[in-house]
């Protein structure tokens, strides 16, 4: 009996989004979204500009809050939890637009990332992310606002990693980056998932790379999920190819 229950809970997704509707004023942005992210997976969400991908990422953190539906994380309903308390459950996000603190140094930005675990392993984590992104090491005492777009993206990801998250949300990590840097960032994501077993939920417009990376994927069109399947299935799906991969590689 208990073994069955344990198995049951082990199979329950780490993050479960059910019928989530989000509005901006009276305008509906998410029209009832269902998504599961299982522990240890890389799940990708692709979709065009304005489909509601970033809104979903922020809705998971309760900012904006879902007006309907439930979001469950590790078996706990987090739909109504304040944003900072959701973050303290060990979910980290590298958000849309990177949101680097412009008048703080790179080092201070990373310190902010480690705030929720009281700097328990700050030095080790700093070492880890600067090995991942050597550019950050060179810029450690420079202000965040003076970094290039690519460096800011690296910093946003590194900052999210500083809390040693169980679930990492990445909103368009490849946006505006040179192909070589994109490859580097995707390699980092793959490695974090493989080596540390970190669960990753990734939003991308760069569909080809993102689908290749993902265990499973969803397609969002104007606030609703229209397709889902394994990364490979979606890569081979003619609709996806026509809409998101046309000449995209």
């Amino acid at each position, binding site marked *: 009996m208990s073994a069955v229950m344990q198995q049951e809970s082990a199979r329950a997704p780490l993050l479960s989004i059910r019928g989530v509707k989000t509005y901006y004023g009276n305008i509906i942005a998410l029209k009832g979204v269902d998504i599961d992210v299982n522990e240890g997976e890389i799940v990708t969400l692709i979709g065009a500009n304005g489909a509601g991908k970033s809104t979903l990422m922020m809705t998971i953190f309760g900012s904006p809050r879902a007006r309907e539906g439930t979001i469950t994380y590790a078996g706990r309903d987090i739909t109504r939890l304040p944003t*900072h308390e959701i973050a303290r459950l060990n979910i980290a996000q590298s*958000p849309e*637009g990177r949101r680097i603190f412009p008048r703080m140094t790179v080092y201070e930005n990373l310190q902010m*990332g480690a*705030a*929720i675990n009281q700097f328990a392993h700050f030095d080790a984590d700093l070492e880890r992310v600067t090995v991942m992104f050597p550019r950050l090491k060179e810029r450690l005492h420079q202000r965040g606002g003076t970094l290039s777009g690519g460096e800011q993206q690296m910093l946003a990801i590194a900052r999210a990693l500083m809390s040693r998250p169980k679930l990492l949300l990445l909103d368009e990590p490849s946006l505006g980056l040179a192909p070589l840097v994109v490859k580097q960032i995707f390699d980092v994501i793959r490695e974090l998932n493989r080596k540390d077993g970190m669960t990753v939920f990734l939003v991308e417009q760069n569909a080809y790379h993102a689908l290749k990376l993902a265990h499973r994927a969803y397609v969002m069109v104007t606030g609703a999920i229209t397709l889902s399947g394994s990364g490979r299935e979606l890569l081979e799906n003619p609709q996806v190819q026509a809409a998101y991969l046309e000449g995209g590689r």
Partner: protein
Amino acid sequence: MEVFVQQLINGLTLGSIYGLIAIGYTMVFGIIGMVNFAHGDVFMVSAFIALIFFLLLTTWLGVSSVAIALLIVLVLAMAMTALWGWTLERLAYRPLRGSFRLAPMISAIGVSIFLSNFVQVAQGARNKAVPPIISDVIVLFERDGYAVALSYKQIIIMAVTTVLLTAFWFVVRKTSLGRAQRACEQDRKMAALLGIDVDRTISLTFVLGAALAAVAGTMYFLYYGVVGFSDGFVPGVKAFTAAVLGGIGSLPGAVLGGLIIGLVETLWSAYFSIEYKDVAAFSILAIVLVFMPSGILGRPEVEKV
């Protein structure tokens, strides 16, 4: 020359009081984009708290050492005024967060009226005076019968200001509390995503601002020996001017602005006319803003992203 040096000393003393108040304006504006019009009255309340505790300690509890009395008064005034700051934010500003932009400012004007009237009712409308607390002076030099003097009071005011500003600077720059405060100022949403309790940080900002206003209030009480219920208004407006002059949102700017306003005011009084000293102070503001719209150390509104 002698007059100039003397006014320089007086100006720096006055300026450090303005600077302490200005920090409260600039911090609150930086974090929630609101001008806290009640801040000058919080300063006035703190001066009353200092007066009450000083009398309590010296006349009723018989504390004979003025230095010890002043130290206790300073600590108590800071603690109690900080509590005022915290309470006002909870009652008058937090419920309006997320409302339209002007709502908290209108509420702040209400708080300002409430505080000055409350003190008027509770303490009476007449100015409260105490005999000079410390009247020793050091004569720096004397020429043609004009002695340039530095009073003990002025030394205390400048020393206390310097020490507390340094401590405050350390808190904001080097501690995780200060880092959270700056993070909320730069991007509140992101700070929340990193697990920072934004509401708590905003409370903390009001508490820090009020505590520094209390330092100013205690120093004001020590310097002039007189406090009245309407004393919050003019120093409040001048400190706000100082914050704008230095660049609103900038902490060093607030201190610099305070010193400039203090110096302009005293030098103008000495060389031109004391009646027009406020005109001079505000004219400087107008002129600086024409050429540097974001203040001396302020940053331009638009930032490279």
